[in-house]
């Protein structure tokens, strides 16, 4: 801790905010200094500036909360321990319930891909025989819809999870908490983009009846898989574990292969192997659930401004804050800026969708973009853009994660743990690296790109946080 007495004993080391000439003068004299690239906080919004000052008076309380939350986040050791039907393992799951991505939303307000996926899930569960029947059932109020996030789960895109769907079970070994995600179906006509044709339902049945049991045997035989190690290795191999999972999926297969060979029959093994070999994103759902398990461990800590969830339902973008319980702070979901597959354009895009931004919330994805130069072209940028995105994110995070390092940044640990206050103060929106869904159900992914989490979510949460602190 500095004091004025120590200041007089020198050496004086100056942080200069404002007139740059003052810093130049100090530099010319050889005095250690750093210039702040200062802008009015909160983009100059006077009310927010006032709230930030108010919160500054509670800095110690907030720092303590954040220290605890970040400690739990960084200490988390997510392990893939099982695959089991959602209804059997997710606490509180009901037979006539469907989980979806993002913040809460009712059937009548859902976007095309989410409605399509719900129709598919109802048919898959045998609760409806036709899309028409499924729509009637969905609208009847007889089906309970709830965000995955509220059940410890996450799902990419529409994120629909139904009772008999197999889910990955991730256990945080340090915190003891569990998180869940469905199994990735691959690209093209798939449920998560709202497709619900017999082909899609058939694949889901195969995943339930063949893929899941085979993988389960392998996972149990391996004694579970340490996901942090896989992710750490994948980051060294060009993945950011949101939009690029090629290395991680390969590593996963390589790790499971010996046990798969031992535990499975020839026919099953061949089918499973070719399914996994054709799906570059198979690891995504595991990455997401591991992030969810880590962040849930850090959720619910009084005074903490750590963001513990960022999720989109295709209509709204929502965030949750560790110190603000289970409340969602939402804003209209933005459109993703990116590149489209041949034949598609902005006009086809659905607003931002899916729980996959949990990876960014945990310091991966866009936050680790510098690790994945291979995909920046895909999202319309250069390798140095990728590095700059990651560097910018250090300004809004509370910590760095020593377990995950980035070769291109001289093995600097990834920026981890988004701070509500820093986001509002700097006006820097978290960057998310994501896929673009077609607005109509079932067309699938039409492109990929970058999107910024809307500032309104953060300013709303900051206001609530200030209210809560003021009432104490």
């Amino acid at each position, binding site marked *: 801790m*500095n004091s*004025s*007495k*120590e*200041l*007089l*004993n*020198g*050496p*004086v*080391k*100056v*942080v*200069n*905010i*404002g*007139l740059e*000439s*003052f810093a130049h*003068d*100090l530099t010319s*004299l050889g005095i*250690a*200094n*750093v*210039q*702040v*690239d*200062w802008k*009015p*906080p909160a983009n100059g919004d006077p009310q927010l*500036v006032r709230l*930030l*000052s108010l919160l*500054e008076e509670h*800095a*110690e309380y907030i720092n303590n909360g954040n220290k605890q939350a970040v400690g739990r986040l960084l200490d988390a050791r997510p392990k893939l321990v099982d695959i089991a039907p959602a209804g059997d393992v997710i606490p509180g799951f009901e037979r006539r319930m469907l989980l979806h991505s993002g913040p809460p939303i009712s059937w009548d307000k859902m976007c095309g891909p989410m409605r399509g996926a719900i129709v598919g899930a109802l048919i898959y569960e045998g609760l409806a025989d036709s899309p028409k029947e499924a729509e009637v059932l969905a609208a009847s109020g007889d089906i309970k819809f709830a965000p995955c996030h509220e059940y410890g789960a996450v799902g990419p895109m529409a994120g629909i999870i139904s009772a008999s769907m197999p889910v990955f079970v991730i256990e945080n070994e340090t915190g003891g908490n569990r998180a869940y995600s469905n199994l990735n179906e691959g690209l093209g006509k798939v449920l998560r983009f709202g497709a619900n044709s017999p082909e899609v339902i058939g694949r889901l049945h195969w995943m339930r009846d063949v893929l899941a049991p085979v993988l389960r045997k392998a996972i149990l035989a391996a004694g579970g898989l*340490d996901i*942090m*190690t896989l992710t*750490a*290795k994948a980051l060294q191999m060009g993945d950011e574990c949101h939009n690029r999972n090629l290395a991680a999926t390969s590593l996963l297969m390589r790790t499971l292969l010996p046990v798969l060979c031992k535990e499975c029959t020839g026919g099953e093994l061949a089918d499973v192997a070719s399914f996994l070999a054709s799906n570059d994103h198979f690891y995504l759902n595991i990455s997401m659930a591991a992030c969810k398990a880590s962040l849930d461990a850090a959720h619910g800590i009084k005074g903490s401004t750590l963001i513990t969830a960022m999720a989109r339902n295709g209509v709204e973008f929502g965030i949750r804050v560790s110190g603000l319980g289970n409340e969602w702070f939402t804003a209209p979901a933005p459109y993703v800026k990116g590149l489209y597959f041949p034949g598609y354009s902005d006009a086809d895009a659905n607003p931002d969708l899916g729980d996959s931004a949990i990876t960014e919330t945990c310091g991966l994805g866009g936050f680790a973009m510098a690790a994945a130069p291979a995909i920046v072209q895909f999202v319309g940028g250069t390798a140095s853009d990728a590095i*700059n995105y990651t*560097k*910018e994110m*250090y*300004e809004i995070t509370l910590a760095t994660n*020593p*377990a995950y*390092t980035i*070769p291109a*940044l*001289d*093995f*600097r*640990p990834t920026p981890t743990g988004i701070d509500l206050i*820093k986001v509002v*103060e*700097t006006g*820097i929106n978290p960057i998310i690296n994501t896929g673009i869904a077609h607005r109509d159900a079932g067309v699938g992914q039409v492109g990929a790109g970058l999107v910024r989490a809307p500032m309104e979510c953060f300013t709303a949460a900051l206001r609530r946080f200030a209210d809560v602190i003021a009432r104490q």
Partner: protein
Amino acid sequence: MIIRWLVKPNMYQDSVKLMKLSAEMRQLDGVQQASVVMATEMNKETLKEIGMLVPEVAEANANDLVIVVAADSEEQALKAIETAKNLLAGSEVKQVESRLQLPRTLRSAVEALPGANLALISVPGTYAAAEAFKALNLGLNVHLFSDNVSLEDEVRLKEFGVEKRLLVMGPDCGTAIIDGVPLAFANVVSRGKIGIVGASGTGIQEATVLIDRLGAGISHAIGTGGRDLSDAVGGRMMLLGIDLLEEDLSTEVILLISKPAGAQTTLKILERVKRCKKPVVMCLLKGDLSGAMAAGVICAATIEDASYKAVALANREEPVTIPENFWGDYSEQISEAERGLRPGQRYLRGLFTGGTLADEAMVVLGSIIGDVYSNIPLRPELSLPSSRHSMGHTVVDLGDDEFTRGRPHPMIDPLPRNERLLQEYADPEVAVILCDVVTGYGSHPDPAGELARAVVKARTTYPENNVVVVAFVCGTDADPQPLSEQVEVLEKAGIIVLPSNAEAARVAGRIIKLHESRGVQ
């Protein structure tokens, strides 16, 4: 030999990085062998061969990172492990070097500059208090250069500062010198035994320059901002400054520079000064010295006299008042200048960029030529109806808020004074124009050149008005604009340059007075 180890479960790191790290550890004192590896079967085999495979490491698996050190002592081994842990967490300094962009917030700036201890804040007033709070929370002392910070915020900041024993210099603090480092607007002066706490930026600058000129030096100069001595703020920073200088080993004499202060605060300061273990000189500009004198405090009515007394004390001499003609006898220059004046020229106009320099000039002039009008008058009845128009004898502070709203301070941007000089020069009743030239860090790169050109232009424009121009240069030869060069530029333009601001005011006043007496004859 002692072997110590640490197993970090499930922490994957790239092997090249770990090899580098192991090599670095082997450089540490007393370390004979060091190995940071993932506990793969192969690596464990290697450890076994060199006799470093302890049971806990043998049980670790390929996802676990292990650090094993063999050193001469337990202490050295543990230290090596600690070093490895820190290097693994990512050395912050190294990371900053690789960061090309500037930090965007105070918080990240502090991460970028380990050991930072002072925030110099000059952002717009609306945001300045908030940044200052952040700085204090981060354990930084604050130099708050910004103005337009509310009194309420100032009180809160200073209360918080005192609580944390951190300085809050400002708001509206133009200068400081800490441990020899000039901050914001400051002159380069010798280091020495005199410590200053001042409620005025240019007052501090003038005092440091005069002390330097008198052959002594400055330990620290702490600014408080102009409102510190109001009863609302209660002199919190002046009191903290006195505490600091009293404890500071390099300070032997303390010089306080204040403007008229709140009644309660004056008492508080005097009380503190009386208890101070080191000699204190108090400069009470525009103020009533009687209270301080009655309290037995060494005081002075001008910066010049205060600096003189402080230097005397530093030299362990009697702090007597500065003698008359101390800087020299200027009678001849005064007579010569007066001879060039026409009968109708009778007024003095002071055009100052430094507020305290203007104050001091008015104090000096008052005893020679009587009442002086001003935008910062000695007495309310001497207030100018319009700051932009002089009347009778006038001294204007061109750095006052109404002139600087929306434009740079005249110490940086000489244009407003150049224009005002032309305006005064055009007035046939004006006899003498008195100016200050403030050099040093922060100021215009060539303020004397600017003034000289403005005077030459005025003489060319109004050749019939032979106005005398008198100036003082607040600067040193070590400043980025060296004093000798600045003086030369002024003298070439026929400007009379004096070694102190008070002396410049005295000479200017005496020219007026002499001309007046001749007129009577």
